[in-house]
C-alpha cells in the first residue's frame, strides 16, 4: 500500500470524481469529496515523510521501467507542492457547501464537486508525474475543469472571463506541447530524468533553445506572470467565490512548480542562466509585475479584484526569487509559494464569507463590516498583514528570506525594491481596513451577521497558520530549503 502512494495521490481524486455521480445527494457528494481530498492530503503528508527519510521515490506505472514506461517521481519539491495543493483544497472544501448554496443553482452542485475533484486531480498529477507528456495531459485536465468551474459564476461576465481564460490557457498549453515535441525530437525521450541526462549534449542547438522559449511562454501564461496575467483578475472575480479561493491558493503554484522543474531539473541551470539570459529577464518581469500589479490593485473598486492583482504581484515576488538561481533564492521562492497559498486561501475564503452574507465585495460593501462580521474581518486583516509582510506573519518570513537572498547576491537595489513593493501593499490593505472599521454600515445593511461556522472554521485555521508559520518557521523553512538544495544537487 505504502509503495503505491505516488499513484494513489492522483488516482484517489480521479476515481472519486465519477463516483460522485452515483451518490446524487449533494450533501453526501460534499462529504465524499471532502473525504477524497482529505485522503489526498494524508497521502501527500505520508509521501513527504517518506521522501524526507528515504530520498526520492520512483514509481513505475504498470511495472514498465523508465524511460520506456511512465514514471512517477516524487522528491522533496513535489511532495512539498502536493501538500500545499491537497491541504488547501481540503480546507476550501470545508466551506464549499455553505458557499455554493447561494452562488450555484442546486441542480449543479454535484457537477461542481466533480469538476472540483478533476481539477484537483490535474494539479496533483502535474506535480507527481515524472513524464513530460503526462504534464500536458494533466495540465489540460485541470484547465478544462477550471474553465467550467469559472463559468459557473452567477454573473454573465463569468462566462466571458472563462472563455477568455480558455483561449489564453489553450494557447499556453499548446505552447508547452510544442516544447515537449521539440524536446522529444532532439532526445527521443519523454521521461524527465532521462531528458535531463540527454539534453545537455544537444543544448547548444537552436531546436532546444526554441523548445525552452515555447515552454517559458506557455508556462508563464499559466503562471499569470506579468505581462501575461490578463486572464487572471476577471476569472478570479466572477468565478464562484469558493472556486476563486481554491485557484488563488493552488493553481499558480502548480505553474510555478513546472517552471522550477523544467528549468532546474530538465534544462539545467547552466543552460537557462548562462547560455540564455533568463535571470535578467525574470528579474525584470518579476519586479515589473510587483509594481504594476500592486499599483493597479490600489485603484480597484472590487476587493476581489484587489487581491487578484495582489496575487499577480505575489507571483512577481516568487519569480524574483527564481531569477536569483541560488539555493537561497529558490528556497525563498518555495517558501513564498507556501505562504502565499496560506494568505490567498485565508483572504479569498473570507471574501467568500462576505459574499455569502453581504452579496457583493465592492469596497462600499465593507462599510461597518468590522463590527458586523468581526471574525471574518479580523482574518482579512491578518491575511492582509501577511500580504504586506508585517513581522510575526508568514508573509514576513518569506519576504525576509527573499531580501536576504537578494543581499547575498549583492543585489542591493533589488532588495530595496522588494521592500518598496510591500509599501504599495500597505496602501491597498489599509483602504479595506479603514472602510471596514471606521465607517458606519450602509443603510439597509444593518442586519448583516457574522459568517456561519462552516466559513469561520477553515478561515481561522488558515489565518492562524499565517501567524503560526510567521513565528515557528522550522517546518516550512526546513522543507523549502531541503527541496531547493535537492534541485541544486546538494545533499541536504
Amino acid at each position, binding site marked *: 500500500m505504502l509503495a503505491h502512494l505516488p499513484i494513489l495521490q492522483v488516482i484517489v481524486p480521479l476515481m472519486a470524481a465519477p463516483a460522485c455521480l452515483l451518490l446524487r445527494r449533494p450533501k453526501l457528494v460534499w462529504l465524499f469529496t471532502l473525504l477524497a481530498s482529505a485522503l489526498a492530503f494524508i497521502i501527500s503528508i505520508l509521501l513527504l515523510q517518506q521522501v524526507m527519510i528515504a530520498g526520492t521515490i520512483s514509481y513505475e506505472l504498470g511495472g514498465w521501467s523508465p524511460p520506456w514506461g511512465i514514471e512517477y517521481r516524487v522528491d522533496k519539491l513535489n511532495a512539498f507542492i502536493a501538500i500545499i495543493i491537497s491541504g488547501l483544497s481540503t480546507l476550501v472544501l470545508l466551506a464549499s457547501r455553505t458557499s455554493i448554496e447561494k452562488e450555484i443553482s442546486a441542480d449543479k452542485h454535484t457537477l461542481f464537486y466533480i469538476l472540483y475533484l478533476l481539477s484537483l486531480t490535474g494539479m496533483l498529477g502535474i506535480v507527481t508525474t515524472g513524464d513530460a*507528456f503526462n504534464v*500536458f*495531459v494533466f495540465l*489540460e485536465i485541470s484547465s*478544462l475543469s477550471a*474553465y*467550467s468551474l469559472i*463559468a459557473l459564476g452567477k454573473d*454573465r*461576465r463569468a*462566462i*466571458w472571463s*472563462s*472563455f477568455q481564460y*480558455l*483561449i489564453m490557457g*489553450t*494557447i499556453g498549453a*499548446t505552447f508547452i*506541447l*510544442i516544447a515537449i*515535441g521539440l524536446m*522529444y*525530437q532532439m532526445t527521443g525521450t519523454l521521461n524527465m530524468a532521462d531528458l535531463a541526462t540527454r539534453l545537455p549534449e544537444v543544448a547548444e542547438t537552436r531546436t532546444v533553445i526554441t523548445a525552452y522559449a515555447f515552454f517559458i511562454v506557455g508556462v508563464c501564461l499559466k503562471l499569470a506572470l506579468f505581462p501575461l496575467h490578463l486572464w487572471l483578475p476577471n476569472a478570479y472575480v466572477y468565478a464562484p467565490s469558493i472556486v476563486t479561493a481554491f485557484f488563488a491558493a493552488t493553481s499558480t503554484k502548480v505553474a510555478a512548480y513546472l517552471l522550477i522543474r523544467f528549468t532546474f531539473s530538465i534544462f539545467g541551470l547552466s543552460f537557462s542562466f548562462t547560455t540564455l539570459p533568463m535571470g535578467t529577464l525574470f528579474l525584470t518581469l518579476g519586479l515589473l509585475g510587483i509594481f504594476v500589479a500592486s499599483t493597479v490593485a490600489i485603484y480597484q*473598486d472590487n476587493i476581489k479584484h484587489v487581491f487578484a492583482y495582489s496575487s499577480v504581484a505575489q507571483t512577481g515576488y516568487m519569480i524574483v526569487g527564481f531569477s536569483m538561481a541560488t539555493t537561497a533564492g529558490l528556497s525563498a521562492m518555495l517558501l513564498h509559494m507556501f505562504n502565499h497559498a496560506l494568505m490567498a486561501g485565508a483572504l479569498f475564503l473570507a471574501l467568500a464569507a462576505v459574499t455569502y452574507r453581504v452579496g457583493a465585495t*465592492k469596497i*462600499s460593501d465593507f462599510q461597518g463590516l468590522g463590527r458586523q462580521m468581526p471574525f471574518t474581518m479580523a482574518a482579512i486583516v491578518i491575511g492582509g498583514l501577511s500580504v504586506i509582510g508585517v513581522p510575526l506573519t508568514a508573509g514576513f518570513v518569506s519576504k525576509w528570506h527573499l531580501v536576504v537572498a537578494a543581499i547575498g547576491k549583492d543585489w542591493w537595489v533589488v532588495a530595496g525594491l522588494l521592500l518598496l513593493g510591500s509599501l504599495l501593499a500597505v496602501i491597498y490593505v489599509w483602504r479595506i481596513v479603514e472602510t471596514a472599521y471606521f465607517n458606519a454600515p450602509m*443603510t439597509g445593511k444593518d442586519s448583516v451577521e457574522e459568517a456561519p461556522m462552516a466559513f469561520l472554521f477553515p478561515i481561522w485555521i488558515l489565518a492562524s497558520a499565517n501567524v503560526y508559520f510567521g513565528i515557528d518557521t522550522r517546518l516550512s523553512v526546513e522543507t523549502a530549503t531541503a527541496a531547493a538544495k535537492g534541485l541544486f544537487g546538494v545533499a541536504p
Partner: protein
Amino acid sequence: MTMILGLYNYWVVIVLMMIGFYMIIAHGNLIKKIVGLNIFQTSVFIFYISVGNIEGGSAPIWDESIILYSNPLPHVLILTAIVVGLATTALALALIVRLNEAYGSINEDEIQAMDNQDMVNHSLSNQHRDEEPC
C-alpha cells in the same frame, strides 16, 4: 532550396500555426476564434506526426521482411492531444452558446462593450444611491 523543399513539412506546420494564431487574435467572431484555435492545435499535431515518420519506414507492425519502422510513439501521443483538443473545442462551443444566451451576441467587441457599459451603469447607480438622503 533544400531548406524549403526538404523540410516542407515544417513549413506547413509554421504556416498553419501562424494562420491559426492570427485568426485567434484578429477575428472578433468567437466561432472563428475557435476555428483558429483548432488550426493552431492541428499544426502541432502535424508537427508531432511528421517528427515520428521515418523516410521509407513502415507502420510499426512486426514482419520479417521489414527493416525500417516509423516511430509510433508521437502518433500515440497525438491521439491523446486530439482528444484534448476535441474536449477544448466542445467546451468552448458550449461557452459560446451560453454567451449568446447571456449577451445576445457572439462578437468579442460587442460583448466587451456591453461589459464596459455595465460597469458605467453600475457606478452611476452607486452614485445615485449615495446622493439619496438617508
